[in-house]
């Protein structure tokens, strides 16, 4: 199980400035191995105002996307430019392969339709049999004999009428579909074109995010508790959030009222208010002299503080 996981590279699609993951295996992988649960945002096409039971794609925060890029397990693909260039520059074989893929999708759809049709027919027939049996038992011999010819005539007459209709040419008629993904079109490997990072690696939000993520904390957006993030001690499926968190720069001034209000709010929802920052590394050197520490300790130390109401 570990071997395929090690090679996995998560495709993060940048669409209109948002970072989306469309592959369910990628979603499971980053949740399980990198502590990123992110937010499901997909609605059904028929119901764009849906706000419950959302599905793929998963939308990553910029910090989460940056972390995957930094760890080398993901890459950001600019979907608009990539799709355009792939569609215009595809050579003949690639083009044919793509068209073949579309045809296969349509065939699959056809098979699915037929299967469903057969299921429905089988169900109807079963129902008819159940309905016919008690009727037979109640009425006895004569009635059953009277119904039989009727069904016989039906079955014989129907093929006759269909035969009148001129036969359609024996061409494969497949249903039209709109492909839900363009997985066959896009390359599996990241394109060489360098994309700008989701967030600068030195931004305060990213530094605090990386620090807490490396300690096993999970994040969800924090608006519902009045902060930048809600921070969970493990997967949010299993735990309540421990903290509501805000990030600041090392030398950013925080009004005392912000600390008091957030601390008060946090205590009211049984959470601590967490804030923190990374100390800028001395002499501007990016790499610290400590040789082999986890990646979260690049640069200066990260200091975090928790605030709670004192109850007095």
């Amino acid at each position, binding site marked *: 199980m570990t071997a395929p996981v090690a090679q996995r590279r998560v495709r993060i699609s940048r669409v209109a400035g948002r970072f989306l993951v469309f592959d369910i295996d990628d979603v499971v992988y980053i949740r399980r191995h990198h502590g990123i649960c992110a937010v499901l945002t997909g609605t059904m096409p028929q119901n764009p105002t849906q706000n419950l039971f959302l599905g793929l794609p998963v939308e990553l925060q910029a910090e989460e996307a940056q972390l995957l890029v930094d760890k080398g397990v993901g890459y950001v693909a600019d979907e608009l430019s990539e799709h355009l260039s792939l569609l215009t520059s595809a050579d003949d074989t690639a083009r044919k392969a793509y068209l073949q893929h579309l045809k296969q999708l349509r065939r699959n759809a056809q098979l699915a339709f037929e299967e469903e049709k057969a299921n429905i027919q089988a169900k109807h027939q079963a129902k008819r049999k159940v309905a016919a049996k008690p009727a037979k038992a109640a009425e006895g011999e004569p009635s059953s004999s009277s119904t039989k010819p009727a069904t016989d005539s039906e079955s014989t007459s129907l093929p006759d009428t269909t035969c009148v209709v001129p036969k359609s040419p024996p061409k494969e008629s497949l249903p039209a579909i709109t492909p839900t993904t363009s997985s066959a079109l896009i390359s599996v490997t990241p394109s060489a074109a360098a994309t700008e990072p989701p967030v600068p690696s030195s931004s305060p939000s990213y530094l605090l995010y990386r620090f807490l993520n490396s300690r096993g904390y999970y994040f969800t957006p924090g608006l519902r508790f009045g902060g930048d993030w809600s921070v969970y001690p493990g997967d949010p499926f299993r735990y309540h959030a*421990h903290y509501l968190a805000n990030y600041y720069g090392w030398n950013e001034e925080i009004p*005392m009222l912000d*600390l008091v209000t957030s601390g008060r709010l946090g205590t009211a929802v049984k959470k601590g208010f967490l804030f923190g*920052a990374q100390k800028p590394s001395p002499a501007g050197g990016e790499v610290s002299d400590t040789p082999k520490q986890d990646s979260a300790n690049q640069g200066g130390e990260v200091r975090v503080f928790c605030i*709670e109401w*004192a*109850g007095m």
Partner: protein
Amino acid sequence: MVISDHLEALTKIVLHNLRYQHDWVEVHQYTKPELPRPMIYGLPPKRLYVHPDEQVAIIRAEKETGQRIEPEPELEWVLPLHLSEKWTPGQFAALFDAIDSIPPGGPDPDSFDLDDPASQWKLWQGPKRGKRVLLATVQDDSTVTYYWIFDGLVKPRQN
């Protein structure tokens, strides 16, 4: 260290508030060159903070001995602040670096018996105690609010 009038007044307000409104005893000012302003430490009438893991240890000890344990009050640090102030994370870090977890006059962390299974819960008053400071925020109407600030990741209490 030269203390400005404003800081002196601020410290006095908090000191009096602790002494006369919250019945603290042994309240003292604490100055140190590394500290940007005088701090206060003192003894509250009852225990102000119980770490969630300390609570677990206490309940365990209560179960073993069959006796109720009432945690004794501990000496606490207090930082007087005015509501109009703005502090940076860097300043808070420097403040925590300048103090010990236990204020002067408290128990010596080295005097605890680390191996005695019956007194594990007591370690939270000594070596296991993290750095914490009461932020005493003063407003102009002389309201003082008290909030804990902890150094590092400290999980919230199960209140």
